[in-house]
């Protein structure tokens, strides 16, 4: 089941309509930010991490994948056949960011309601509640749920109707580390069962050891999609190495190395080099340095975005929230 194409999106686009009242037309709208010309293939069993800064268009893209927002351009297809919006919705389970479930309704009643909306059997709700660990709370009212339980309920609703694709918008928000870990393991299990998972986050670290591929989104455009290694290679990243020692390096070998960052705090000296440098390791061992850390550093989201867009760190930061969509440098240095 893995690697089978679950869904394919071709050149999809959407622009938000923002109120722009005029004296002659108080309901006048103008086009705001959105998504432009995104091509994305979702494979069964694969977890895709959708990353980007605030306002990059992650939620908009996820809503399009879920069939909530209409495609102004492009289309979704499965096995080469164009999908209507209802067919798309029936294939995708969507978990929005932080649902504030409230009311006197119980979890079981809520699941029954969404099972009816989904068109799946009501009996399946019990099984799904077991999967997300809420079966023994199924008679609890929504008011009494903690944030973590609300997230689990949102996931349970998304799993109704055995979706081919699971779309999760910032699912770790408000969850404690233990719950995050359990959630990640659950997602991996679901992926192993052939479900394609798309998960958004503005923190790459949250997606560590979870996602198979990364999709980089900025200003509504998909700048690149692939494994972290392939993105690094395409963007020309070299592996960076962090080394923490008990004293400063005085050996002449230091002159031949490219130090990206160096900081000292008391007895701790931290270096970041642009590659792994095994010859340095030999020297440090030979000279009895105490090496408390030696690790390969993954690129940060900012670094990946800077490399993909050609913008510097300040420009990326100030860019958040811009409603205009201008062509950006795409992967491989091409201009769109």
């Amino acid at each position, binding site marked *: 089941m893995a690697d089978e194409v679950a869904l394919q999106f071709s050149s999809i686009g959407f622009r938000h309509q923002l109120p722009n009242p005029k004296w002659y037309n108080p309901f006048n709208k103008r086009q705001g930010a959105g998504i432009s010309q995104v091509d994305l293939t979702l494979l069964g069993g694969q977890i895709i991490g959708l990353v980007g800064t605030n306002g990059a268009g992650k939620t908009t893209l996820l809503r399009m994948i879920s069939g909530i927002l209409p495609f102004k351009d492009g289309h979704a297809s499965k096995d080469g056949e164009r999908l209507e919006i209802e*067919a798309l919705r*029936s294939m995708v389970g969507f978990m929005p960011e932080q649902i*504030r*479930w409230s009311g006197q309704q119980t979890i079981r009643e809520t699941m029954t*309601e969404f099972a*009816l*909306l989904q*068109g799946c059997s009501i009996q399946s709700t019990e099984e799904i509640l077991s999967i997300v660990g809420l079966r023994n709370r199924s008679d609890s009212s929504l008011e009494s749920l903690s944030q973590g339980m609300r997230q689990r309920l949102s996931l349970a*609703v998304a799993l109704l109707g055995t979706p081919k694709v699971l779309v999760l918008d910032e699912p770790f928000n408000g969850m404690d580390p233990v719950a995050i870990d359990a959630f990640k393991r659950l997602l991996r299990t679901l992926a192993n069962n052939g479900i394609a998972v798309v998960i958004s986050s503005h923190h790459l670290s949250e997606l560590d050891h979870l996602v198979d591929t990364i999709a980089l989104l900025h200003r509504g455009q998909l700048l690149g999609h692939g494994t972290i290694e392939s993105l690094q290679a395409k963007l020309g990243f070299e592996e960076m190495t962090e080394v923490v020692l008990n004293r400063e390096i005085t050996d002449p070998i230091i002159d031949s190395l490219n130090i990206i960052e160096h900081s000292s705090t008391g007895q701790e000296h931290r270096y970041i080099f642009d590659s792994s440098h095994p010859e340095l390791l030999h020297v440090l061992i030979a000279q009895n340095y105490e090496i408390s850390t030696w690790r390969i550093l993954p690129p940060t989201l900012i670094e990946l975005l800077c490399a993909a867009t050609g913008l510097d760190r300040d420009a990326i930061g100030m860019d958040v929230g811009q409603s205009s969509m201008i062509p950006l440098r795409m992967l491989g240095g091409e201009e769109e």
Partner: protein
Amino acid sequence: MTPTQRMIRLAISLCRQRMFSTRMLIMLPILLLFIPGMAWGFADPNLQLPAEQIPENATETMFLASIGIVFAGTMAAVLIAHDGISRDRMNGVLEIRLSQPMQRWRQGTVLVLGHWMSIALPVTLLIVASMVLVGYRSDMWIQFADAIVFIVAAALVLLWYTVFALLASSIAKEQGSAIAFSIGLWFLFTLLWVLFTTLLAALNGVAVGDTQDQGYLIFEGRLDLLSPNGVYHHLLETRLDGVQRGVSAFVAYLSAIIWTVVPLYFFHRRLNRLVP
């Protein structure tokens, strides 16, 4: 289970939630006071009304008591449905609903049916109770056909206000706007309409001060077709003798159909284009 069966089940579930909500508990005394309370008052054999209007049968008594539906019933419908969509938008549940494969028109119908039934059922029970009270107190029993028209007309006016409130709720981005829009509309049709009618009549040279003036009555009757409360009263008047307000029963029924179909059409169109 067929899609229609699923819709009905969802509507019943929504109706149950709304009917047993705290909001309904708060409104119940108002409904009791305005519907059976008014019927009890108008059924008083020693009743003295302005212009020496004395109800001659139970249908006329119920017609007078229908003001309770106009004031309390429609307000309750607005208060029940004003956050039917905006509440889900605020807490994020709307996103999940909109991502479900059930067609939007079906989801819209569930919303309308659920909210409408939650107010129409208690109001219908109170209307039946009112009819019994009128019969008990004045010894005049309403005819079956009149009772049916009375109940159906009340159900229709509640439906119209429910749809207005849901439409407002779908447009409003937050609760305040939704309630302002819904209550504003209720206020216009329930309280300001008389002023509006009088003003227009005066501008058209009709004798406004004389409520018995036939020209004024006909003008008011025709203008009432533009108000849901007016159409509601026209429907009730089809069962009264000697009412001449320039609107035939056919026009009243046609207006009722238009007031049902047009807002529902706009609501479904709105829901089809709804984004979180």
